[in-house]
């Protein structure tokens, strides 16, 4: 990314494409976003502050961001593994497994939530065995993490997969002939190239998980101070027709998410640059 060439593009139509992009982003992203911020201006600063720092709301930030982080990290590790298997090996049924990865995208989140709750509640197929060894999954933060892991899985796999496919196997082979073992080849040759994509996948999974509502409300149990996710608190505000309060919390989530995304972007840029220079 470092060699930013400012030469004139050989492709025509930049003006039109850029105009369309701006219009499209405005309609789809910027205007709703601006509306959100505008709505919170109905509150005075002190009101805003007391809404977004109420103990229940604070507890929900910890829960939402914490479980999303764990889910995203889990998917970063295992998503990479899944992508690896799908790209590097061929085996019967590979296409089916490849298709399975996208299912969480397609499934209505409520269906996912209900299915996971059935599986993991204390009488469920999996839950009863977990219960037997003293682990409660449904209606605890663990259950929330499971749901978030499920819905954010495709992001890592689908961002890493194409990069993995593009990797030049000859370089690895060259390294092997120079005596690098498997681990060295992975850490020193592949990982630096994969890292930007992995970080992107992580960021997408994380962002997706933070805003997730539909699948989580069923498995979380919604107990105040313990298993209330932030989007649920937004819903409870709406239920009281407190639009401004609801958007205040939404704005906080948005700002925090945006800062985190920027940070990840910066890390990604750095890792990309180091890789090019180094």
């Amino acid at each position: 990314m470092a060699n930013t060439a400012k030469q004139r593009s050989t492709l025509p139509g930049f003006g039109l494409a850029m105009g369309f992009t701006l219009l499209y982003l405005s309609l789809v992203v910027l205007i709703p976003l601006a509306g959100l911020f505008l709505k919170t201006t109905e509150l005075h600063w002190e009101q805003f502050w007391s809404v977004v720092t109420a103990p229940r709301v604070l507890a929900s930030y910890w829960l939402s961001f914490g479980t999303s982080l764990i889910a995203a990290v889990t998917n970063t590790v295992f998503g990479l593994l899944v992508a690896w298997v799908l790209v590097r090996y061929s085996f019967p049924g590979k296409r089916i497994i490849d298709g399975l990865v996208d299912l969480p995208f397609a499934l209505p989140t409520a269906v996912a939530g209900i299915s996971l709750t059935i599986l993991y509640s204390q009488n469920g197929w999996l839950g009863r065995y977990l219960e037997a060894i003293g682990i409660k999954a449904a209606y605890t933060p663990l259950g929330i993490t499971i749901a978030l892991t499920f819905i954010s899985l495709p992001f890592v796999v689908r961002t890493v997969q194409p990069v993995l496919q593009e990797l030049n196997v000859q370089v690895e082979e060259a390294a092997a002939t120079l005596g690098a073992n498997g681990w060295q080849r992975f850490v020193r040759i592949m990982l630096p190239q994969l890292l930007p994509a992995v970080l992107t996948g992580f960021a997408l999974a994380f962002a997706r998980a933070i805003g997730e509502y539909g699948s989580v409300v069923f498995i979380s149990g919604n107990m105040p101070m313990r298993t209330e996710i932030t989007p649920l608190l937004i819903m409870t505000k709406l239920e009281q027709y407190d639009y401004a309060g609801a958007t205040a919390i939404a704005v906080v989530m948005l700002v925090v998410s945006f800062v985190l995304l920027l940070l990840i972007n910066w890390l990604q840029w750095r890792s990309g640059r180091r890789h090019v220079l180094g």
Partner: protein
Amino acid sequence: MSIQTGAQKKFYAFTRGIQLLAAGSLVLGLAACGKSGSEVTNSAAQTNGKTGSNGTVEILNVSYDPTRELYQELNTAFAKHWKEKTGQTVSIKQSHGGSGKQSRAIIDGLEADVATLALAYDIDELENKKLIPAEWQKRLPDNSSPYTSTIVFLVRKGNPKGIKDWDDLVKPGISVITPNPKTSGGARWNYLAAWGYALKKYGGDEGKAREFVSNLYKNVPVLDSGARGSTTTFVERGLGDVLIAWENEAFLSLKEFGKDKFEIIAPSVSILAEPPVTVVDKVVDKRGTRQVAQAYLEFLYTEQGQEIAAKNYYRPRLTSVASRYAEQFPKLNLFTIDEVFGGWQKAQKTHFSDGGVFDQIYKK
């Protein structure tokens, strides 16, 4: 380094775009989460257009979740009645979702000719937004509630924990399933029913009532976001010893899952749940549908309308119909929200608003 191929560069540019979009979809997701989930279904005769000159008219009834079957039946009956009376074909569309969500949809511009919601608080908000006049609840008989219901208990067959009344729900070791009153209108009726019982039991002592209700909620392992969710938790997930439920929902569970699995227990005292209905003045005046919308709601009070309500396990107001269905509904002592809590606005403010009694119960 030459390893970074052109394809990869394109890929990075692409993912950066995706990240922007992901941030955007987060916003949209948040904005939309309030609106998803409701659905509009079409019933009665399918017609095109609004108030057609050829004698057809279409109205929309925006209602809450458990009334789907009730209004399907009512709509067919009313369409027939209206055709006979005026020669006009009426097509009634229905929309169902959480009561509060439905009210917000109307406020946000869903053109509901009539609103038939779970509690007056949700219709009061239409008044606050100037969609209906202040005295809306006095425009139709019986507080604008053509049918009523109450809060009862659903237990597993044989009642293994011997649950008979509210007192049994606060005993240690009893697991109670009820939805979250912060997100579910139905759950607010449950909560107020328990509170009203405790007030009666302790001779109006608010402190004791509060203790009773917090003990009850200590026995609640899961607060589902809506009434249907709680029913699923209890009936299909097998969680809990008792489900606090609307009477009509409890009957539906019996009908659907079998009387060999569950039974209904009527507590000694409960609340009279009055789901209200109203014409949405701003909409009917704009669309010119006031006459038919008004007639539609009045039809709910007729012998035929009451009969359909009773068949769908709502308690009819009309004594002639009520006496015919007397055996279906257990007799219990019912109080109204106005008597005990001074109306919905007050109850909501004291108990369910942020920082209210329900929040205090869960304060650490």
